[in-house]
C-alpha cells in the first residue's frame, strides 16, 4: 500500500471539508447581506466588524437550542435523515479538480481527491441519493407538512434530474470524456464550454437551482404553505444540518458549473505568464474560487429577485419545456459532432 498517497488524500479531504464548511458558513452571512442590499436594508452588523462574526453567533445559537424529537416520529430515521443530506452534500466534492498540482521537492500533490474516469456520473449518483435525506427526514417527522414537503422535494428532484442528465450528455458528446479533469483541461485556452453549449448551460443552471431547492424552486420548504416543509419538526443542530447542507450544495454546484462550463481553474492568458509550478497552482485555485464565488452570488441574486413558482408551473417547466429542449440540444450536438467536426 502506498501510504504517502493515502496521507496526501487524507490531508486534501480535511482541507476541502474545512473549506466547504467555511464557505457555507460565510454564504449564510453573504446571503443576508445580499438580501439586505437588494431590499435596501443594512443586514447583520452587530456581531464583530460589519457583522462578520454573525455565522459563529448563529452556529452557537443552533447548538444551544433545545433538541426536540417528536414522540410519534420514527426516531432512528428522524436522526439519520439530516445526516444523509449533509453527508451527500459533502461527498460530491471528491471528484472536483480544485487546481493544478503542487510540487513539494519532487513530490507531486494533486488537488483532486479521486480522479475517476466516470467523474460526472459519480456527482450525478451522489446528487440523486441526496434526495433521500429530505424524504426520510420528512417522512420520519410524522407531520403532514413535512411529508408534503418531502414528496415535493423528491418529485422535483426526479423531474429535474432527467433534463440535467440530458444536458450533461450533450456536454459529454462535445468533450468526449466523462473525466472532470479532462473536461476542465479541454477548456484551457479560453474555449469554455459555455460558448459551445449555451442551451445546455442554461438547462444545467436551471436544474442546478431545482436540485439545490433554491428559490425560485424552493417549494419543498415554502414557508407560506407548508410552515417549513420537510424540516418543520426539526430543531437545534438537526435543523442546522439541513439549512447548512443547502449552502454546501450551493457551493459545490457552483464549483461544478464553473468546472463544466467556465473552464474550471483555467483562465485564458495565465499559462503564457510561465509562473513557477507552485505559484501557478495557487493562482489556479484562486481563479476557480473567484468563479465559484461569482456563481454563489448569482444564486443569491436570483433568490432575492424572482418569486417562487407554483407547483404545477414547476412541473410543466421541468417536463414540457426543459426535457424537450435538452433532447433537441443532444440531437444538435450529435449532428454537429458527426457532420461538422
Amino acid at each position: 500500500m502506498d501510504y504517502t498517497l493515502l496521507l496526501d488524500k487524507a490531508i486534501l479531504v480535511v482541507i476541502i471539508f474545512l473549506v466547504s464548511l467555511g464557505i457555507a458558513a460565510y454564504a449564510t452571512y453573504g446571503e443576508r447581506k445580499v438580501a439586505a442590499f437588494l431590499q435596501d436594508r443594512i443586514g447583520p452588523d452587530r456581531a464583530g466588524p460589519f457583522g462578520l462574526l454573525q455565522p459563529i453567533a448563529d452556529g452557537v445559537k443552533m447548538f444551544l437550542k433545545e433538541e426536540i424529537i417528536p414522540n410519534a416520529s420514527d426516531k432512528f430515521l428522524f436522526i439519520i435523515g439530516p445526516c444523509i443530506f449533509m453527508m451527500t452534500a459533502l461527498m460530491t466534492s471528491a471528484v472536483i479538480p480544485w487546481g493544478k498540482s503542487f510540487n513539494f521537492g519532487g513530490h507531486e500533490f494533486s488537488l483532486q481527491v479521486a480522479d475517476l474516469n466516470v467523474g460526472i456520473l459519480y456527482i450525478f449518483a451522489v446528487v440523486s441519493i441526496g434526495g433521500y435525506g429530505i424524504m426520510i427526514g420528512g417522512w420520519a417527522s410524522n407531520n403532514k407538512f413535512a411529508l408534503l414537503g418531502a414528496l415535493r422535494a423528491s418529485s422535483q428532484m426526479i423531474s429535474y434530474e432527467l433534463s440535467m442528465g440530458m444536458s450533461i450528455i450533450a456536454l459529454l458528446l462535445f468533450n468526449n470524456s466523462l473525466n472532470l479533469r479532462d473536461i476542465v483541461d479541454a477548456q484551457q485556452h479560453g474555449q469554455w464550454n459555455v460558448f459551445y453549449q449555451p442551451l445546455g448551460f442554461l438547462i444545467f443552471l436551471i436544474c442546478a437551482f431545482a436540485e439545490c431547492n433554491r428559490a425560485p424552486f424552493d417549494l419543498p420548504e415554502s414557508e407560506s404553505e407548508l410552515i417549513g416543509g420537510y424540516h418543520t419538526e426539526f430543531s437545534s443542530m438537526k435543523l442546522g444540518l439541513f439549512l447548512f447542507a443547502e449552502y454546501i450544495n450551493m457551493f459545490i454546484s457552483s464549483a461544478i458549473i464553473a468546472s463544466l462550463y467556465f473552464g474550471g481553474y483555467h483562465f485564458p492568458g495565465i499559462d503564457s505568464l510561465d509562473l513557477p509550478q507552485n505559484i501557478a497552482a495557487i493562482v489556479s485555485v484562486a481563479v476557480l474560487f473567484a468563479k465559484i464565488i461569482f456563481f454563489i452570488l448569482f444564486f443569491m441574486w436570483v433568490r432575492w429577485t424572482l418569486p417562487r413558482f407554483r407547483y404545477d408551473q414547476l412541473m410543466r417547466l421541468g417536463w414540457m419545456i426543459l426535457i424537450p429542449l435538452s433532447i433537441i440540444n443532444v440531437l444538435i450536438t450529435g449532428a454537429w459532432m458527426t457532420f461538422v467536426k
Partner: protein
Amino acid sequence: MSQTIFFILSALTIISALGVLFAKNPMYSVLSLIACFFTVAGHYIMLNAQFLAIVHLIVYAGAIMVLFLFVVMLLNLNAETEPHKTSKIKFAAVIAGGILFLTIIASLKAGIPGAYHLPVKSNIGLVEIIGQKLFTDYLLPFEVSSILFLSAMIGSVLLAKKEKR
C-alpha cells in the same frame, strides 16, 4: 486485501437483502433494498466496472427506489391496513417463487463450482469498452430491450390517460 473486502461486502449484501424480507415496516424494507444496491455497486467496483457501478446507483438507488419510497410514504402501509391475501394468490406466489428458485439452482449448477477468482486487470466495465460492445456484438439485444422500454412507457401513458374519455 481484496478478498477481505469481498467477504465483508458479501456479508453486508446478504444482511441487507435479508433485511428487505424481514423488516416489519415497509419503509425499512425499501431502505434495506437501497443499502443492498449500494453493496452490489461495491461488488461492481471490485470488478473494475466503475461505469456499471455508478449507473447501477443512478438508475436503481437514485431513480427507481425514490419512486418506491414515494409510494410507500403516500400509502402509509402498516399491519392493520394490509389486505388479506387470498389462498389463490398465495398458491401462485409459491409456484412463482419455486420456479425462480429452480432457475437459480440450475444456473449455479451450470457454473463451475468453487472457481472464484477476480479478474485483476479486466477493463470490461469501462465506458468505451461497454459502448463498443453494446453497439457491435450486442446490438440486437440492446435495440430490442430499448423497444421494450418504449412500449412500456407508451403503455403506462395510455393507462394513465384512460379515465379522461
